[in-house]
């Protein structure tokens, strides 16, 4: 079953090779049609297809190169701007530092001035106060002296029953009293007793 068809096919191949032309030798029509096709394809490719693609390719190359140049330019510009910005920033920082330094110096001066002024004011106030106190003390001493004299005289005249209307006498008594008073200033209770006794002696 298998053998005979295969044998037949070998015979077929042999027969075909005998009857048909050699594979390596072209028929005229084969060359003619091949030439027609190659010429047409070649013409269309040479005249239209390849130049068109070449043009597009060249245009694209130009565009890309232009784009790259533009990008480089932009980058340079950006770098320049950055540098300018850095420079301005540094300048601003220096300015700020200088201003701060000046302000600090000025502040120091102001504080010193204020301190001096305050000192002066304080000493002035203290001096005024001292003077006022002194003046008031003297006033008090004067009025005290006259009032105490009057009071003491009145008291003494009431106690002694003797008129001390005579001004000269009165003044003498008062002065003596005060002198004694001053002499025994240290001890108040001690001073009280001699004053009383002196007034009594006077009467």
């Amino acid at each position, binding site marked *: 079953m298998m053998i005979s068809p295969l044998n037949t*096919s070998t015979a077929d191949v042999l027969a075909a090779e005998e009857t*048909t032309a050699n594979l390596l030798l072209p028929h005229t029509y084969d060359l*003619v049609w091949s030439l027609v096709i190659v010429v*047409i394809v070649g013409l269309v490719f040479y005249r239209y297809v390849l130049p068109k693609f070449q043009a*597009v390719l060249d245009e694209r190359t130009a565009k890309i190169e232009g784009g790259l140049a533009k990008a480089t330019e932009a980058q340079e510009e950006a770098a320049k701007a950055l540098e300018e910005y850095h420079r301005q920033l540094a300048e601003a920082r220096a300015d700020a530092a200088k201003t701060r330094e000046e302000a600090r110096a000025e502040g120091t001066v102001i504080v010193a001035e204020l301190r001096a002024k305050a000192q002066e004011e304080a000493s002035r106030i203290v001096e005024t106060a001292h003077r006022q106190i002194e003046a008031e003390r003297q006033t008090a001493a004067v009025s005290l002296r006259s009032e105490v004299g009057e009071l003491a005289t009145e008291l003494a005249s009431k106690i002694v029953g003797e008129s001390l209307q005579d001004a000269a006498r009165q003044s003498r008594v008062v002065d003596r009293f005060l002198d004694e008073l001053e002499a025994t200033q240290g001890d108040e209770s001690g001073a009280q007793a001699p004053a009383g006794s002196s007034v009594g002696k006077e009467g």
Partner: protein
Amino acid sequence: MLLAAEGDGEFHAPTVADFFPPAIFFEGTPFEFNRVMLVRVIAAVVLLTVFVIAARRAKLVPGRFQNAIEMILDFVRNSIAVEVLGKENGRKYFPLLATIFCTVLVMNITTVTPFLNIAGTSVIGLPIVLALWTYVMYLGAGVKAHGVGGFLKNSLLPPGVPKALYVLLVPIEALQVFILRPATLAIRLMANMVAGHLMLAICFAATSFFLFDAAGGMKLFGAGTFVAGFAFFFFEIFVAALQAYVFAILTAVYLNLSVEAEH
């Protein structure tokens, strides 16, 4: 054509007759038109339609379609033209290389295109025309660069060899430059595509035979041949691209041998 074995209970192996189908019209004239010529015309029309549309819509910012086309052209420009010929000559000969690469690629790929199923390059005429184009271009480039004498001296008299050996070397080099280069270009391409077509056809014809005509357990072989055919299908796609690359890069190499300064 691939599944020609269906129906009559016998295994029909593909034959070289596949590459010489009966004429469709103009039989017996130089313009005889058969199935392979039709496949070539269809492939050329598709190639031109795709590339012309891509070129017409070509924009600065490419879409997906334009990207794919440009990827092919960039491959030819960078990996073949500039790589082999250098920047200046690569740019000069890029149109030639791009046209050859695209033509060979599309004519090869028809070998795995459903309904076409045969490579436009599997009949020797087209490979010969393309190889002759390369031949004329590299001879012309050599003569233009060095003059006729300079080109012959460059090609036939390799330097650094004892003069006596030229008796041997000149015929060998002449054979190489004037006959073997174009002949191998054409035959390599054709033979690869013929072999690929036969392998694919045998696998699928065998699959058909085993599945429909073989008895009982023999049907299992059909699965094996089908898998093999499937594998060959992808292998053929690879071969189609590879042969286009080989043809284009050899063209670039021959051009470079012609134009480069004396060694």
